[in-house]
């Protein structure tokens, strides 16, 4: 297999997704199959070929850096999973 269960565990941790042991096994199998399929790209000689990151050809699209009033503050706060007043509540990050 191209990717081991240990590697799946590692990338799942980096990606912040909790997986069950059954999921880890399934992902190791299916991702290995996908990565094996990608080997087809090694047939292509890409020496000296520039990568294409975008297709519009637009370069440096600027706009004025102006402050606009936010008129939907209340609606945004209403979407927050846990609040105290107008503040978002998250678990503690720092230890005492």
């Amino acid at each position, binding site marked *: 297999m191209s990717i081991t269960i240990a590697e799946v565990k590692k990338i799942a941790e980096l990606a912040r997704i909790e997986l069950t042991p059954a999921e880890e096994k399934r992902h190791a199998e299916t991702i290995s199959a996908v990565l094996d399929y990608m080997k087809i790209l090694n047939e292509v000689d890409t020496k000296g070929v520039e990568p294409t990151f975008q297709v519009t050809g637009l370069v440096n699209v600027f706009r004025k850096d102006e402050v606009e009033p936010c008129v939907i503050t209340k609606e945004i706060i209403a979407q927050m999973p846990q609040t105290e007043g107008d503040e978002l509540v998250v678990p503690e990050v720092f*230890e005492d």
Partner: protein
Amino acid sequence: MKLNELTITEAAEGLKKKKFTAVELTRACLDLIKKRNQEINAFITVSEKSALEEAKAADKLLAAGNGKALTGIPFAVKDAICTKDIRSTGSAKILDNYVPPFDATVIKKIRDLGGVLIGKNNCDAFGHGASNENSMYGPVKNPHDTSKVAGGSSGGSAAAVADNQCIFAIAEDTGGSIRQPASFCGVVGLRPSYGRNSRYGIMPMASSLDTVGPITKTVADLAIVMEAIAGRDDRDATTVPDSVPIYTKALEESLKGVKVGVPKEYYEIAGMDPEVKAATEKQIEKLKKLGAKIVDVSLPHTKYAIAVYYIIVPSEDSSNLGRLDGVRYGVRSKPSPRGRGTEGEGSSQGALYDLYAKSRATGFPEEVKRRILIGTYALSAGYYDAYYKKTQQVRTLIKQDFDKVFNPPSGGVDVLITPTSPFPAFTIGEKANDPIAMYLADVMVSPAAVAGMPALSVPAGVTKSGLPIGIQIIGARLKEAKVLNVGYQLETNN
């Protein structure tokens, strides 16, 4: 004919002549949704109350003689597109309770014209899939045969239009998500050129590929919607400044002398259904009769497009979907009292880690997790050059293939014609546990996406068992008008 069965053109005409009201038209759609949604499952949210209010407002505009192209026309929106005050889940439970406080630009444009938003269409979660089976709200069934998939990822939008549950729909196409379901359901769908329509307010999947476009009952309808939504948007810096053509005017142009390329690689794809091949050849014959010149062309890197697509998408996905973590909006899972910390992190950091990891574990379906994992892997140190960079280099070669057939010094083709999918709609469950088989369903639709070209799927008959077949018309960048012209001529000359 029932009101919900009308096209945009017919409905607008009827509204203008006061044969019926926007409220009646909207009710006809809502009534059918009520009757059919249990079975077809094309809608996750139906906005009945606001739709009827919008229809009433549209009737007022129409009565005052202030109706515009889409005033009073009921439309549906893929759930991965944000709609103000209407729940937008992206078909994933992590956004089960998310109500956007704003409209995506394309939706705002239609609502400003008086379009009536009737609800949100089921899709593969965040656009990840080719069968609509990756929705956390259940698969969408094909209205032509409910044992078959509707296609994906915009399966709910295509099924809703095909089943006359709305007059048109707005969906999103990253690598085929509009065209493939449109072909499976027997309706018209356009992936516009990358940069033609604003993606502001679209839940991002692969930012260098994502586009938003219409699904309609006819090509003429599609031209009307494109005129309403295309154009530059200050809120999407990737939109191009080029002016928007009057697409509806281009439809009637003669095809005499128009050069249509037939790329041989598309016809050599293994597993192509003979009925699909025959249907495509019939359309090519029709083009000949209409005066078009058929030219054999070659796009030698076609077979690498799927591999390129399925590296770019998970890579960009893994980054884009990082925002969905249960912190600021959406569904937050409770961390366990003593969170599972990562090595070296203290217990309180562990609780935050746990909040992220549990929210994402319960909020994403398997395919979304798989893509995030593949992307995280492909972008990680030591693998970036082998996967992401290599892929973007092959992408250059795919794009050059298209440039060579469309813009050679000697004058290129105007459009390319191919099937939209190698096969008609497949059975629900058939490919569900085989990601590679599912990915290969995109073989005809991913090359144009990777190169940023516009591409249209138009119905081209049905199989013996009654399943729709679609053909794809690919154009040069920003040449949607020519693509729609060819599609319209094929559709209206039988």
